[in-house]
């Protein structure tokens, strides 16, 4: 482990200086360039950061200035962040795929004068809006390709900027150290704009102290140390990357590896073999899908072997994984031997292909993860865990401890973090990683931080009997049934959507007697299912109305109810009745947002008749709906939809069969 002086009062630039003094030749960063991994030691890193800082200083960058960073995860951009911090400035990373008009808002608000960008693509974007942003004086670019003939006076090659900096250092010896000396732990270390799903984007200002304290906790939590390896491929503007890549490389001293290009991440993973991995559920899902596709293409023997051993893994893999942390072993010798054999034949090679052979801890967060997905990784022996947090709290509100992993919680609150549940059900957080403020938005800041210093997360949740935090929905969407039971529509919908046969679900129940649901089947999955049982159908509406399909979906809903029954807080919100919609909810019809989120209000109005029927005793409902065809014509669809009741369970029933299963 790296011995660092008390990190109290420390800043990232001070840590950089310290690393380059105490372990100068340890690798700090790697980048794959022209097919070869190039390593930069801490001394190399310091030299480049110093040159960059000199260059920026020579151009007039001063304490308190903001530096825009735009591009993919490149060492040069991380160095630019470090350089800005060394000069007492604040790096402001941007999402590399943001469009110019969105960037403009932030560039303007942050008063950006200096930007360091990756390549022509980003330069073009800035040039597009440059006339509206007279404040921007200098744009330094890393990759000169295609930029040779650009004449704009603002543009400067990053290499020339470094040369300028080296000259500057000659006439200003010690400028770097002096500037770092002046930095204070409660200076803002980075400004991270939250993507702004609600309202305008807000710049979250995080101090060195908050970030370093959080990173220390993370380091201890999973025993991260200088020998770990991390592949940084998530957007630099995302708090997850800043914390797990930038902050932790400083605090734990491990090496950051930048992928060759966004498309090569899987290959790069395989070559680097990271020991620590973080990704949103979507990424895990994509990987699993790719694996499955390749398995289906494999030879019969391989496929059979795979399915057999995945069965073994599903049965005992997770128990074996948990036993590693808890020491409790309840797997028979035979099963353990089978699992070992599977490790040699299937799991090992598979993890190698995924680049996860050396992953000690893997995290996911941001949204709920499906049980199949979660179990798949854990049964392979990959220690996948969930965490909960947001930009404003340096993520790290709650995390699952190894050996204490549950599918539908996010673990216990982290050391030093206090979590309260407000009367409304909203989760409130007091954390050492609390942001300083929203940049230039005191009103917004005051709104989210209450008088006691708690951050209002906007999420609704509660603690389960083991003290794990369970997040169920956005607080504003959570309602109550008439009897006062908590009703969390998104929680129910997610549970339904985790079934491959359910594509979309909308739950109702606020201020009603019970919960009901409207369901879209997954055309591909259910179609496939129908074909395998020789069930003919003429299209979506026809398939959706089949009795067999209703039965299939009713089983799914019943399973959800069963799960809910074992949760005292949510037992009352079991789904009593459901309907399978005659058409797929569509963004073109305004029923979904472009990112495929359900527009509750629109649906509530449009399908009022169905909702009424769900709460009546009718067994069917006749509806007419307007529908846009692909060619833009508008037509009316008429259909009679069946409404079916679903079995519900009492907590006792759930508990007794859970015991039987065990």
């Amino acid at each position, binding site marked *: 482990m790296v011995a660092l002086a008390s990190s109290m009062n420390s800043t990232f630039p001070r840590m950089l200086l310290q690393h380059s003094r105490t372990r100068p030749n340890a690798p700090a960063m790697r980048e794959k*360039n*022209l*097919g070869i991994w190039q390593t930069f030691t801490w001394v190399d890193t310091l030299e480049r950061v110093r040159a960059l800082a000199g260059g920026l200083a020579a151009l007039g960058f001063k304490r308190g200035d903001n530096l825009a960073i735009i591009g993919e995860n490149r060492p040069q951009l991380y160095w630019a962040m470090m350089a800005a911090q060394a000069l007492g400035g604040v790096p402001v990373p941007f999402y590399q795929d943001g469009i110019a008009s969105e960037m403009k808002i932030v560039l303007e608000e942050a008063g950006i004068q200096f930007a360091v960008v990756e390549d022509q693509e980003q330069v073009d974007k800035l040039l597009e809006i440059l006339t509206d942003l007279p404040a921007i004086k200098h744009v330094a670019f890393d990759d000169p*390709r*295609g930029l*040779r003939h650009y004449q704009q006076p603002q543009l400067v090659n990053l290499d020339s900027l470094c040369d300028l900096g080296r000259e500057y250092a000659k006439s200003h010896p010690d400028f770097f150290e002096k500037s770092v000396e002046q930095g204070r732990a409660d200076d803002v270390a980075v400004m991270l704009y939250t993507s702004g799903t609600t309202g305008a984007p807000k710049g979250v200002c995080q101090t060195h102290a908050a970030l370093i304290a959080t990173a220390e906790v993370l380091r201890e939590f999973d025993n991260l140390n200088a020998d770990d390896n991390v592949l940084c491929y998530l957007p630099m503007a995302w708090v997850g990357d800043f914390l797990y890549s930038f902050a932790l490389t400083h605090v734990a001293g491990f090496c950051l590896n930048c992928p*060759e*290009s966004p498309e090569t991440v899987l290959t790069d993973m395989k070559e680097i073999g990271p020991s620590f991995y973080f990704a949103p559920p979507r990424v895990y899902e994509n990987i699993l899908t790719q694996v499955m596709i390749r398995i289906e293409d494999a030879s019969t023997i391989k496929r059979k072997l795979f399915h057999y051993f995945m069965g073994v893994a599903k049965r005992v893999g997770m128990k074996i994984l948990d036993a590693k942390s808890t020491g409790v072993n309840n797997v028979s010798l035979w099963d353990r031997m089978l699992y070992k054999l599977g490790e040699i034949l299937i799991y090992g090679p598979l993890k190698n292909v995924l680049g996860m052979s050396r992953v000690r801890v893997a995290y996911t967060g941001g949204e709920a993860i499906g049980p199949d997905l979660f179990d798949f990784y854990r049964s392979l022996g990959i220690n996948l865990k969930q965490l909960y947090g947001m930009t404003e709290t340096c993520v790290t509100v709650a995390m699952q401890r190894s050996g204490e992993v549950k599918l539908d919680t996010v673990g216990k609150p982290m050391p030093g973090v206090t979590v309260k549940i407000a009367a409304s059900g909203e989760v409130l957080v007091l954390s050492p990683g609390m942001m300083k403020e929203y940049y230039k938005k005191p009103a917004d800041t005051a709104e989210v931080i209450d008088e006691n210093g708690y951050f209002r997360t906007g999420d609704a949740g509660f603690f389960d009997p083991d003290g794990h935090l369970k997040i169920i929905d956005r607080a504003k969407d959570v309602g109550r049934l008439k009897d006062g039971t908590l009703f969390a529509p998104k929680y129910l919908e997610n549970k339904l959507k985790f079934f491959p046969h359910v594509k979309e679900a909308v739950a109702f129940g606020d201020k009603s007697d019970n919960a009901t649901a409207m369901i879209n089947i997954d055309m591909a999955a259910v179609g496939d299912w129908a074909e395998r049982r020789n069930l003919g159908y003429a299209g979506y509406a026809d398939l959706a109305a089949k009795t067999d399909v209703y039965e299939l979906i009713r089983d799914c809903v019943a399973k959800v109810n069963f799960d809910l029954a074992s949760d005292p807080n949510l037992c009352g919100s079991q789904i009593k009745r459901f309907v399978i919609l005659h058409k797929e909810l569509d963004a073109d019809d305004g029923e979904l947002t472009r990112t495929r989120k359900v527009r509750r209000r629109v649906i509530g109005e449009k399908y009022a008749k169905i909702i009424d029927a769900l709460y009546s005793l009718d067994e069917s409902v006749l509806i007419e709906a307007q529908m846009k065809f692909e060619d833009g014509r508008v037509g009316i669809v008429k259909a009679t939809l069946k409404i079916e009741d679903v079995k519900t369970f009492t907590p006792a029933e759930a508990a007794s069969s859970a015991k039987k299963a065990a």
Partner: protein
Amino acid sequence: MSARKIGEVILKVEEISLAFGGVQALSNISFDVREHEVRAIIGPNGAGKSSMLNVINGVYHPQKGSVTFKGEKRAQMDPHKVASQGVARTFQNIALFKGMSVLDNLMTGRTLMMKSNLFQQAFYWGAVQREEIKHRERVEEIIDFLEIQSIRKTPVGRLPYGLQKRVELGRALAAEPTLLLLDEPMAGMNVEEKQDMCRFVLDVNEEFGTTIVLIEHDMGVVMDISDRVVVLDYGKKIGDGSPDDVRNNQAVIDAYLGVAH
């Protein structure tokens, strides 16, 4: 558009006539190509564009006329010799080695620059490896240039069509040609792939200074990226000049009338 310097005439085609049996594929065609320029040959289907490219490439031997490349007037030549003079090409129907990786395909593009022979390969392993590494470095630059890092080790046969076209361009570039012949580089592509390909063609021209002769059936794309355009129709030259000149040329308009685009 750019500050590229267009130089002297590098390729001169004079009074070329080519017939297959009784069919006159090309009659009396003359034009020239200047160093560092992007020169397009366009025309409706069956206009003789591919024949023209094959004459420059040495695949066809014209009955009449001559080709002068880098000041050297050619009578008959075979493609192998033309290649060693610094001319590389791509094909309308991709001609890659489907079972080999992208990397290997690009490395075969360096064949002409490989100096070691079989004997040396058997006995001077070290020296040969050094040469191999040198070539590999160059090929990696092209991989980086064409942004195909992620498919380096993928067998070409598994790639989608658009990417295969890009790999084929890469293999031609691996030969470090002074003159690059592109046979319908955008054929069969969707709009996005076409835009990508246009960008790569322009980048090649700009970054490496490669002179480019490209054939296209579709007028639209070519006009935007070419410095000068030759228009063929039924084996005859009906226009030659800047894209604007050609666009306003009545003969060209007539030739393209009735041809659906």
